[in-house]
């Protein structure tokens, strides 16, 4: 097709992308937004079947304009439909719609001549319009009558549930939250590229770099601000009680109610890397366990997990994150291990809050596999009999919830039905792979270094 063809929101086309092996690929991508910076058009693309975290702004050169697929049939309404700008003025929109739609104009303030909202005005919300497109992975289950009826039945916007920290139902996912809004975050000696949207103050989203104090996580808009801040901030560790220390690794416990400012800053930072995390409600019902690595400058945050003070669903982790610079170095597993150590002290089994992210699933599976295999391989035959163990026993020893034990055994393909009963079988591959992995796993939690007394939050009036 000709260059003159307008590439607008909702179009799909192959976009040049370099993979990890430094090879050029042309995966199919969808245009989510278009902006114009000094006469140069930039396109926000989402690669189909790739995680959102890889979405990015690309120049027109990277678009394969010859293979553009127009917006899908749901978006039949012409893109330029005479609606002035992105401001929805049509009276038929309810408050919710308006809110959803007004905000997208702001994160891309430069020249969103046609915001996605105005592309699908009839559908009411860009989110739903986008969701209605087949192939859009995120929304394929959410669209349809259910959502429609939900939306139309009550005009008032619904507040999400108040427990937990993750949104499984992405009905509030809109074009604003689908797009990264922070370009770069400077934290200590690191520069992080956010993966997802985070509700930092809107005026800071236009900055090329957002400066964070690495100890109190306060955000500032310039390096000078950060410098000034550091003269006043005397924190050299997360503002909580250190409940674990072994070597340079420490864990700090922070009460989301008592230390709101830090908890909120931490959540804002974490949201940059956690797609499903919700910051809708305050941090009061959560405890934050921040893992740090010590050096002469202080205790540097490596990762954290949050945990509901009281969980009705046996969650022992709400959100869990290893900051990108520390990823793939075993810290994630350390965090997970720590969370199960806490559960062991509490005498409970636990499971992470759902939905898991891709990285979350891999990490947890890996941890579960190694933990369970460790137990199975350590079993000794007693009295000439075959060693045996129940799933409940595994669960009790590890504090891993029974369902997770089963799913891991099943994933590892250990459960077999043999001669009228279930047995666990350990293949050579499994054993070898495990032994290799355990050799690499040098960072371990030492339960002896944990100084943790669980509180019975249910006996308190408030969290």
């Amino acid at each position, binding site marked *: 097709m000709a260059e003159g063809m307008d590439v607008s929101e909702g179009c799909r086309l192959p976009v040049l992308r370099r993979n990890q092996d430094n090879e050029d690929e042309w995966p199919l991508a969808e245009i989510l937004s278009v902006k114009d910076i000094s006469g140069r058009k930039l396109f926000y693309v989402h690669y189909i079947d790739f995680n959102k975290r890889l979405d990015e702004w690309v120049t027109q050169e990277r678009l394969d304009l010859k293979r553009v697929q127009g917006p899908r049939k749901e978006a039949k309404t012409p893109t330029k439909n005479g609606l002035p700008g992105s401001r929805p003025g049509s009276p038929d929109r309810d408050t919710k719609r308006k809110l959803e739609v007004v905000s997208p104009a702001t994160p891309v303030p430069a020249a969103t001549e046609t915001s996605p909202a105005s592309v699908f005005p009839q559908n009411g919300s860009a989110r739903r319009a986008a969701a209605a497109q087949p192939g859009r992975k995120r929304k394929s289950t959410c669209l349809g009558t259910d959502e429609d009826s939900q939306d139309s039945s009550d005009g008032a916007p619904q507040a999400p549930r108040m427990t937990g920290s993750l949104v499984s139902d992405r009905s509030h996912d809109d074009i604003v939250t689908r797009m990264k809004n922070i370009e770069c975050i400077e934290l200590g000696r690191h520069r992080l590229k956010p993966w997802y949207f985070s509700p930092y103050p809107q005026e800071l989203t236009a900055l090329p770099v957002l400066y964070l104090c690495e100890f109190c996580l306060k955000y500032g808009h310039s390096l000078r*601000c950060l410098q000034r801040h550091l003269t006043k901030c005397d924190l050299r560790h997360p503002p909580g009680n250190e409940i674990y220390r072994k070597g340079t690794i420490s864990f700090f416990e922070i009460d989301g109610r008592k230390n709101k400012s830090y908890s909120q800053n931490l959540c804002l930072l974490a949201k940059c890397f956690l797609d499903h995390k919700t910051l809708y409600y305050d941090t009061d019902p959560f405890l934050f366990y921040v893992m740090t690595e010590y050096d002469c400058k202080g205790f540097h945050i490596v990762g954290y997990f949050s945990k509901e003070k009281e969980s009705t669903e046996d969650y022992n982790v709400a959100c869990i994150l290893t900051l990108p610079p520390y990823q793939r170095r075993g810290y994630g597993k350390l965090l997970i291990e720590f969370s199960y150590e806490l559960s062991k002290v509490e005498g409970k089994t636990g499971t992470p809050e759902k939905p898991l992210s891709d990285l979350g699933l891999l990490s947890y599976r890996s941890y579960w596999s190694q933990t369970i295999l460790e137990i199975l391989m350590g079993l000794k035959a007693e009295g000439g009999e075959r060693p*045996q163990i129940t799933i409940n026993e595994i669960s009790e020893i590890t504090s891993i919830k029974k369902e997770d034990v089963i799913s891991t055994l099943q994933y590892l393909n250990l459960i077999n039905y043999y001669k009228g009963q279930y047995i666990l079988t350990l293949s050579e591959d499994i054993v070898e792979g495990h032994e290799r992995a355990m050799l690499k796993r040098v960072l371990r939690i030492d339960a002896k270094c944990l100084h943790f007394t669980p509180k019975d939050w249910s006996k308190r009036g408030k969290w």
Partner: protein
Amino acid sequence: MSKLSFRARALDASKPLPVFRCEDLPDLAEYASINRAVPQMPTGMEKEEESEHHLQRAISAQQVYGEKRDNMVIPVPEAESNIAYYESIYPGEFKMPKQLIHIQPFSLDAEQPDYDLDSEDEIFVNKLKKRMDISALQFEEMIDRLEKGSGQQPVSLQEAKLLLKEDDELIREVYEYWIKKRKNCRGPSLIPAVKQEKRDGSSTNDPYVAFRRRTEKMQTRKNRKNDEASYEKMLKLRRDLSRAVTILEMIKRREKSKRELLHLTLEIMEKRYNLGDYSGEIMSEVMAQRQVIKPTYAIPIIPVTNSSPFKHQEAMELKEYKVKQDKTDVIRPKRKYEKKPKVLPSSAAATPQQTSPALPVFNAKDLNQYDFPSSDEEPLSQVLSGSSEAEEENDPDGPFAFRRKAGCQYYAPHLDQPGNWPWSSPKEGRLGDVRYRYCLTALTVPQRCIGFARRRVGRGGRVLLDRAHSDYDNTFHQLDLEMFSSSQHSSISQFANTSETNTSDKSFSKDLSQILVNIKSCRWRHFRPRTPSLHDSDNDELSCKKSYRGINRTGTAQPGTQTCSTSIQSKSSSGSAHFAFTAEQYQQHQQQLALMQKQQLAQIHQQQANSNSSANTSQGFVSKTLDSVSAQFAASALVTSEQLMGFKMKDDVVLGIGVNGILQASGVYKGLNLSSATPTALVHTSSSSTAGSALLQPSNITQTSSSHSALSHQVTAANSATTQVLIGNNIRLTVPSSVATVNSITTLNARHIPRTLSAVPSSALKLAAATNCQVPKVPASSSVDAVPRENHETEKPALNNIADNTVAMEVT
């Protein structure tokens, strides 16, 4: 190999699973086909994400290789960790404490400004530093305070000066810089902060709003019951405290008034001393006059000599007046309370006569506060006071709140004194309601005065008379008989002498004359029998009535046209035929009357627009039409009023009177709507007509008095029977009635007409006409205030209206 079609049993988590090495089970593969029975557990991921390319690749790589390969990991955006200036900006060397770090609560709350200076500020501060003494931290503190002091709108320079401690010059510099910077700022504040939720809920879906408060419901779920209870307690506490504030405020006012009163009393005492009024005669005379116009504030009379009966009676009078005032107020609908006048107690006390028109707008409670001796009279004030408007507004009981009903009196419970009836004497430490104190009482049959007695309502509505012995009992008996005979004899020629109170008959003994003086000055109550109903009345009474009617007619018919008066005359001759005056007829008349009043009103309006002088004259003319009708009706209604009384069941006290034939002349009944006009009329009937007007003259200063005097003339023209009926009908003297009165007696009392007409607003007239002569329960003087209230009075039973109206007509 048996291809097994059976289903494997469910996996039992509590069942031991033997652990095998695969190499120990060479035949395991044969069983592989049924392994599908192992439950498939969900991954816990979102379905769409689960299928993502990189994840699937990683999973498969893991399964193939047993571990992840470097190129099979899930790609993530890169992160750099090579910030060169890191070492320089972060202060160095933090020694790890040996112990685990334990943070002290509140140790983090260092008073450091949240605002961080940026390079732009730095330039400004450096420039400013040359002229003034300012540090970066100081600047940050100033900006911080300005920001935190501002909401949507930045603080003004004036406010800034209050917020900041620095000297003005510096504040102005920084303020101007700040204002400019803030204007250019993209965010709502120079200290960037996460968007807060809006109270109206409009931010529910704003993605930039975070950390919303969890709703109350969530937080109070655990001990909700407890929370609710404590919340209610707090509400109650708040209400109680605000009440306490109100009470204290009122006490303050009361004490002020008391001080004022004390000064006034002192003044009076001085004046009396200068006048040589040692026996209290001048004082009592003055008091008698004052009572005529119903003073707002009674001045305590402390006799120079120890004339104990006076003392006692004066005290009674004080109470009496207070009760009257309270009644008028309590009956008023509560809307009235909104208009609390700003009348200062001191000024009110200083000019009691002037305040009389403004009186009804006082809250009953307020009045009690001003009353003397208010501090000892809490029970009474509690009983009679209505709840203040403010309290009602704060009342959380909402629709179930207790509301006072107009015309009802509510007694405060005296839990500690179960036998505290209103008639129990104060000596016993009881309420001793003034209405139940002993009064001079006369009976109809046998017709005699029984001396001091008090009336109270017993079980089943029976009216009981408690008698009290006094030294004058013999005199009373004599007095009564003489009075009756004289009244009957002189009824036609001497109307004034026939009042239900004592006449100024000179033929009594010394003792008697003294009593009479007292009665004349209205300090002693005197009950006398109501005119018995027509059926059982004796001839004397009937003739009396007839003659009264005749007089009434002569009085009222004069302003009317000749034809009218003649027709009335003819009617009067057959007056007994009119006794069967029906309610329908009455109603008819009412409508007629209302129509005429409307016409009259319209004309008055017109005339008032022209000029006052011309209006006055023409009004007299216009009123004629009304007069004739009202006169006609009055003549017939006079008779029927007693019949109508049978319908009027509302006020059981009044009913009680009807049953027992006992009447209280100027005493105050429960629910009695005694207007200020009534005592005037009564007083005047006791004296000769000339004396009455002479007595009245001083009180003509106020607008009220004009109608009073008019009324008094009318009453003098009428006879005692008229007054009796009037009283029997709950003594509702009304504004419209007084107007009508004036109109009817134009010729008699032409002098008063202009005044009354100007005094009574046309709106009152109109209202009276529109509401079928709804009877205002306030003195004529307060008709201005009464007007808006009257609109809410329409719910009164029609019968009551009729009765009330009858009274009004009888006056004319």
